[in-house]
């Protein structure tokens, strides 16, 4: 184990001295985040304390100026800042007051009892990485577990695999261990439940947005145990906060450290390293050669290209290399209880690694013995020798505050919330706010929603929902009761968006042309039909109750009623005109009746009645082009 050797080197130094642990290590971070969020919320209501933020003190959205009624404005805001309006929600927003609703969404501090009760049975949502790594075992761990407990090697079983799996499962159960899939299921399910039922809709939309911006993927085995805590600890607390803090939190989280390989990016330019011993170690490493040793530029490149400056943000290959060098040693502590380096790590922790610049902060571990001590120049700024951990932090802050970052992030937010091709002037205004407030996301959102372009009629209905947005908006529009969120996941995957599994660090592209193609579109229509006709197991809807249990008298009537419920404040005249001829076509009616007759004769008759007609009509609305747009 290379890491054990590294630590060994660090520990055998004779000049070790003892001191207090890094304070932050023992801190309760979740509590701190909560405080932080609460703090930011207060900041919004009274005043932004950040420099230049005084202009964003309160929300006064000028929708009237741009010709919107209250209801229209509410519908538009719900389209873009939530996962879709629930029945009656437009009126609720109007009653609350448009500005107040938006402020509340920015604050995101609703108690959210519906979500709490739906998540009550979840076991993993509060766990830390260490518990997860030692409880929710991946395939390799399960295999090793089996061998350790005297079972044959899982990979060699040829005949009765099921019996073997059963034995492993039982044994794991006895010891309180679980397969990783259970963790991943809860990760996926919690996202679906929160998106569908949370009252803090904007926070859910933003969590989705920022996770995708800082994408990590369940497809990569090395980081798959950390995705849940990544979203929870490195994304969620910051979604309306300070960009720089979120960037740093993602940089230091095990998921990102593993996903883009920074955890294995190391340097020998280091005074702590005894080169002679190191050579021996390197030979051993080569013999094992599981990991590429040396500088790894992946994270350094992507933090500039994808997270901050953008591909045209004005950096060079030399900058990439220098940033990678500045981040050498940024790693994670050994989390598995049986990790070979674990004991050495614990020992090192007891004496603060001899006070030689090692940092342990929650699961983040700065390995001073693997950091490149030489001076560096990054984007024209000089970083002197022996910068240690602080050097990397300065680099990240510098990237967060770079003017290119303001521009890049502003454009990305505008693309998500306004249009696939936002105007330069809007992006410039948002970027200016970003710069003036040192990356205050809330302030940038306020600038956006106050701008003329947000209210431009041209951008209304011009965004196409992602498959996830489509499914969740259908659930919300119908007040559906989702008992099996995994069914939603499967459909969203079918429509082209396997959430948490996007392999590239770019995240899913945010443009209609990516989502809308032949196969995906048919599946959207099929989703609408299956959903509304209750063919998706574990999802219950009660269409009649949405219309106060008044049954529409005809297909035409049903079309009108449910179009207005599912798509408030949209113009349905054209749709109704076109569809009415089809749904009231005599031959169609005849066919319906024939089908009904046939089914009556069937052994288990399907209830053919108005309900079926209504659900069919609802399915058509959900699968229609209008419902794909937001």
């Amino acid at each position, binding site marked *: 184990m290379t890491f054990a050797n590294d630590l060994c080197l660090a520990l055998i130094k004779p000049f070790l001295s003892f001191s207090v642990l890094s304070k932050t290590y023992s801190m309760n971070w979740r509590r701190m985040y909560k405080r932080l969020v609460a703090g930011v919320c207060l900041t919004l209501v009274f005043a932004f304390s950040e420099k230049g933020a005084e202009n964003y003190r309160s929300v006064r959205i000028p929708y009237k100026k741009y010709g919107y009624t209250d209801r229209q404005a509410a519908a538009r805001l719900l389209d873009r800042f939530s996962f879709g309006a629930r029945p009656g929600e437009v009126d609720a927003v109007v009653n609350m007051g448009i500005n107040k609703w938006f402020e509340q969404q920015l604050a995101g501090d609703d108690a959210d009892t519906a979500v709490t009760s739906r998540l009550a049975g979840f076991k993993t949502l509060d766990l830390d990485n260490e518990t997860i790594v030692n409880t929710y075992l991946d395939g390799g761990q399960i295999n090793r577990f089996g061998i350790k407990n005297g079972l044959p090697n899982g990979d060699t079983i040829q005949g009765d695999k099921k019996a073997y799996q059963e034995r492993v499962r039982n044994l794991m159960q006895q010891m309180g261990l679980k397969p990783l899939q259970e963790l991943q299921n809860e990760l996926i399910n919690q996202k679906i439940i929160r998106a569908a039922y949370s009252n803090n809709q904007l926070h859910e939309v933003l969590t989705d947005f920022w996770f995708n911006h800082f994408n990590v993927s369940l497809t990569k085995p090395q980081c798959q145990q950390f995705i849940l805590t990544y979203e929870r600890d490195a994304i969620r607390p910051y979604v309306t906060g300070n960009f720089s803090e979120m960037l740093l939190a993602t940089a230091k989280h095990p998921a990102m450290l593993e996903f883009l390989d920074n955890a294995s990016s190391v340097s020998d330019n280091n005074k702590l390293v005894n080169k002679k011993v190191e050579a021996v170690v390197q030979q051993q490493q080569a013999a094992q050669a599981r990991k590429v040793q040396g500088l790894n530029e992946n994270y350094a490149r992507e933090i500039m*290209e994808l997270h901050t400056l953008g*591909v045209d943000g004005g950096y060079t290959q030399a900058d990439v290399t220098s940033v990678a060098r500045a981040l050498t040693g940024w790693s994670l502590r050994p989390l598995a209880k049986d990790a070979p380096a674990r004991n050495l790590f614990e020992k090192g922790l007891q004496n603060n690694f001899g006070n030689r610049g090692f940092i342990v902060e929650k699961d983040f571990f700065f390995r001073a013995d693997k950091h490149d001590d030489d001076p560096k120049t990054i984007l024209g700024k000089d970083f002197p020798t022996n910068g240690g951990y602080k050097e990397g932090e300065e680099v990240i802050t510098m990237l967060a505050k770079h003017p290119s970052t303001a521009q890049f992030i502003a454009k990305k937010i505008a693309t998500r919330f306004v249009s696939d091709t936002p105007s330069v002037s809007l992006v410039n205004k948002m970027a200016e706010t970003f710069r003036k407030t040192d990356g205050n996301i809330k302030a940038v959102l306020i600038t956006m929603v106050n701008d003329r372009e947000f209210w431009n009629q041209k951008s209304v209905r011009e965004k196409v929902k992602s498959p996830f947005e489509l499914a969740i908006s259908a659930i919300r529009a119908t007040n559906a009761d989702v008992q099996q969120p995994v069914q939603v996941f499967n459909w969203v995957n079918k429509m082209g968006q396997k959430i948490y599994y996007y392999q590239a660090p770019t995240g899913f592209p945010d443009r209609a042309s990516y989502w809308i193609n032949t196969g*995906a579109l048919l599946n959207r229509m099929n989703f609408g039909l299956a959903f509304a006709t209750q063919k998706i197991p574990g999802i219950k809807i009660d269409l009649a109750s949405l219309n106060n249990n008044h049954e529409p008298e005809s297909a035409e009537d049903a079309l009108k009623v449910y179009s207005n419920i599912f798509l408030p404040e949209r113009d349905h005249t054209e749709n109704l005109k076109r*569809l009415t001829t089809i749904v009231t076509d005599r031959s169609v009616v005849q066919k319906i009746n024939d089908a009904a007759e046939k089914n009556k004769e069937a052994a288990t008759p399907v209830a*053919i009645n108005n309900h079926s007609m209504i659900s069919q009509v609802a399915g058509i609305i959900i699968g229609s082009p209008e419902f794909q747009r937001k």
Partner: protein
Amino acid sequence: MTNRRAFMKQGAMALFASGIVGGIPSFIARAADANKLFMPYKKKKVLVCIFQRGAMDGLMAVSPYTDPNLKQMRPTLFMSPAATEGKQFDLDGRFGLHPAFDALYPFFKEGRLAIVHGVGSPNNTRSHFDAQDYMESGTPFNKGTASGWLNRAVGLLGHDATPFRAVSITSALPRSLYGDNEAVAINNLQDFALQMKGNPIAPNMVAGSFEELYDQTTNKLLNRAGKESFDAMKMLNVNNIKNYQPTAGVVYPNSPLGNSLKQIAVLIKMDVGLEVAFAESGGWDTHFNQGAASGTFSRNAKDFSDSIAAFWKDMNAYQDDVTLMTMTEFGRTAAQNGTGGTDHGRASCAFIIGNDVAGGKVYNNIKSLAKEDLEDGRDLPVSIDFRASFSSVANNHLKINNNSVLFPDWDGYTLNLMKG
């Protein structure tokens, strides 16, 4: 099986019967309008790619059996044409083909199978994820490349497309096909329909309603994709797929790869405009007891080669238009490990099959398996960049000549694996 012309007849009747408007599919009409496709029904060249996930042991698939080091490093895994049990096919006096690939051996003899050996990525990562990612994006040192190489290949074809131009028989789009050009991921072609199963009421009403709605939407993208979806659905008449009969005598293995290749065959024979197809084959990560003449590797190899051979036979009159190539993220250690398997290594080998292929040859720059010739003293080094092999097929078979777009940041040589 209907061919395109038969479909037009049948299809037109079906459309008439269901009261759905349309005659000639709009994407074909559009292509003809645009004068880009001179003959809309002209058969196109098709590239079929199979990704062997898990890293195939290239030294077991195609062994340089004359190298004494191999036998030494693989006491229980070594095979050769001279062996009594597990006799390999002798390819050229130096390389032997594992007997489980027996279905592919005739291709080699006939000169339709080229083997590229010592092929891999210049990035020496031994992580499955990273190596697959790099190979599929086609940029071995850049994770942030948004598109996959096959998607870029599609973009370079230079003519208009049908919705089925790029199809992956997988549940989610593979990294190779990420990108700006339309690509369809579908597990089962039978899903390509409006699913009215269990809905007793009026499928026509639903289909008619959707078609009408998408026809009138002001959103151009939805409008166009809607039209194409309905056209495509009609083209892929589900009954045709359900009742598909392969060429007489062809039996596909009932395995994931066999089923994937069968669906690709359906698409090719229906002339729906397929040009790039993608399928996966799993189970190559043989750390434990991989076996020699029999065992895990052998079973996998058998399924792999039988599936490909069935597909090829099924292609029948279409064989001239199809090239099939395989890829795997890396190879495995030259020496066997302590558990009768092999660990993650560097170079592996690839198979390229087609009538245009300059086959019957093992393309390689392999020196020896002596320790000093191995990478890190343990792995067959990469002596042919995977892009040298991929670009050869793309250039010759698909007539794509812009390698700087296909593989940005690469200026290596292109192998010459193809005739002409």
